[in-house]
């Protein structure tokens, strides 16, 4: 097929897919003299690789002047069949695939997945493990929000704002690196345990980092929140009210910015969140500016939680007592026959998960991160569904931007923080 033409309604019409073509070519089959705006219609294709799209997804919009009349979104360019892989890999092998879902906050995915499988198996993890997981989650949340508000400001032309946050983000990655040696794709959790224990004094470093980040956040707040250009570009832009959020299953900061007050950490208490003191910031307008403010406030709350965790964490085991999921000690693997057999059995055959099903949700940085696993016994899942918040948020982009200017799409997309890895799976 020649890319320059497309068969539409039984005729070949020229399309320049990379730039744009007059919409009258396909949308209006004949010239309508009563329509004042007939000739000004244009179809614009944004993406899949466009600097403002934050990943490989695409939006095709029919414009009237600069106003979007109708649009559709496409994605799936980085589809890696994770759900199919989950049915063939063992539960342990799938841990690494969870990193590549929301790669801005990989630790959330690791922790949620570990919780989901532990829940199916009925494994209780020790206290220190939960504290470390909680701290990981909150660090990841701060990173995710920093990149979200930073990048959305870059898209609207405020570059230096992003660099303030970027430094703290790098420092946070250094903290994560101390845990597991990786910065982005962490694979830190194991079913029933963790890859490594946190090094000595790690919590003190986290506390120092939290203090420093708080100062940076105040600085960023002063820099941007009252900025006239930023306010003009975001206030009243991309409004998605509470009812629409319910319709489109919005969760996380976009929902809370519209007054839909749900936070799974508070509402369905898990880990030790019920022992923590934190507020759930909400706003009522549901526009880009409110999403920004909610994220900014959430960073402060996360830092509060981190400081409380750092005070409460104690030394102790990180692995569950349960022998089913325990990875054999290296000393035994290298020095005993039984240990080596155990090692190979564990990594090649995996462990058996009893029959059952569970939907485990965790308040991720962008919203409800869920793993729905159906097990029919055996060492791999019968069905594993990843519920990524981006999937539902990106669906709201078309209705959100209908009637808005094309330039507002960038602001909307940045404030929703759609991550292609989680969307495409």
């Amino acid at each position: 097929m020649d890319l320059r033409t497309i068969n539409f309604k039984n005729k070949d019409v020229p399309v320049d897919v990379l730039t744009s073509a007059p919409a009258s070519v396909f949308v209006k089959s004949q010239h309508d003299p009563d329509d004042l705006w007939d000739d000004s219609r244009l179809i614009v294709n944004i993406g899949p690789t466009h600097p403002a799209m934050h990943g490989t997804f695409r939006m095709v919009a029919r414009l009237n002047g600069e106003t979007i009349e109708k649009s559709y979104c496409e994605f799936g360019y980085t589809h890696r069949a994770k759900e199919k892989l989950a049915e063939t890999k063992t539960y342990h092998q799938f841990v690494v695939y969870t990193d590549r879902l929301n790669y801005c906050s990989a630790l959330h995915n690791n922790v949620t997945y570990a919780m989901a499988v532990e829940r199916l198996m009925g494994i209780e993890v020790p206290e220190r493990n939960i504290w470390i997981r909680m701290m990981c989650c909150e660090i990841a949340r701060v990173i995710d929000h920093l990149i979200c508000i930073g990048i959305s400001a870059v898209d609207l032309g405020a570059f230096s704002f992003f660099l303030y946050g970027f430094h703290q983000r790098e420092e946070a990655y250094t903290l994560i690196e101390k845990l597991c040696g990786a910065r982005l794709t962490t694979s830190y959790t194991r079913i029933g345990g963790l890859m490594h224990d946190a090094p000595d004094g790690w919590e003190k470093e986290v506390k120092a980092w939290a203090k420093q980040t708080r100062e940076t956040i105040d600085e960023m707040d002063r820099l941007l929140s009252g900025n006239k250009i930023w306010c003009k570009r975001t206030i009243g832009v991309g409004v998605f009210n509470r009812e629409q959020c319910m319709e489109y299953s919005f969760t996380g900061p976009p929902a809370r910015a519209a007054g839909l007050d749900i936070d799974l950490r508070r509402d369905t208490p898990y880990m030790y969140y019920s022992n923590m003191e934190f507020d759930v910031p909400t706003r009522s307008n549901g526009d880009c500016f409110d999403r920004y403010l909610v994220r900014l406030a959430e960073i402060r709350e996360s830092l509060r939680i981190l400081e409380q965790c750092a005070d409460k964490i104690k030394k102790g085991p990180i692995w569950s007592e349960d022998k089913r999921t325990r990875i054999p000690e290296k000393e035994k693997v290298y020095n005993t026959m039984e240990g080596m057999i155990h090692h190979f059995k564990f990594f090649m055959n995996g462990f058996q998960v009893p029959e059952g099903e569970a939907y485990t949700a965790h308040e991720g940085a962008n919203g409800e991160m869920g793993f729905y696993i159906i097990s029919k016994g055996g060492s791999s899942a019968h069905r594993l569904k990843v519920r990524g918040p981006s999937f539902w948020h990106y669906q709201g982009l078309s209705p959100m931007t209908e009637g808005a200017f094309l330039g507002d799409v960038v602001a909307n997309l940045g404030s929703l923080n759609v991550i292609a890895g989680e969307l495409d799976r």
Partner: protein
Amino acid sequence: MNIKQQVVTNFGSELARFEADWRSQVERIKARFKEAVEGISFPGTDFTDVPIVRVKPTSLIELLSFMKIEAGFDYDFCADFTASDESPREPRFDIIYNLFSTTRHNRIRVKMGIAESEEAPSIRSLWAGADWSEREIWDMFGVRFEGRPNIRRILMDNRWKGHPLRKDYSIYSYQIFPNPEPPYPEYLEDE
């Protein structure tokens, strides 16, 4: 330790917290929908974390809107919506609705069996956001939805043959397209 016994980790309070609610809800559903409800699994006795209501396709919309609006239920949030291939069982597919209540903060699950030749009822009238999930289920499992004859794929290329998450679909199979997917200007026409 009895490995068949379900212990809920980090969520231990959930069953204790919501058991009374769930029991009364399940009773009300049974009383109201009678034989349209094919079975109910309850946590504690069955291997599940929340109650599962199995419903016949004909009563699905009625049940979901009842659960969405009725006082004492308030499952007003569709947290997740997916399917699973249960072959060789008949009907082959399960359509699964994970619902959440934004006021009561508990979850419940509704399942519906659908044969390969049947069309599943569309819940877009209840939650507009179910649109993409329905497209995903069509894409991955090949289940059609009522009122959507031209439903299109979402993750895979529109020219793709087969439905990858079916159990008989090999993980090693691939299809190569020499040209990129063409644009679809007809999606931009007013309905």
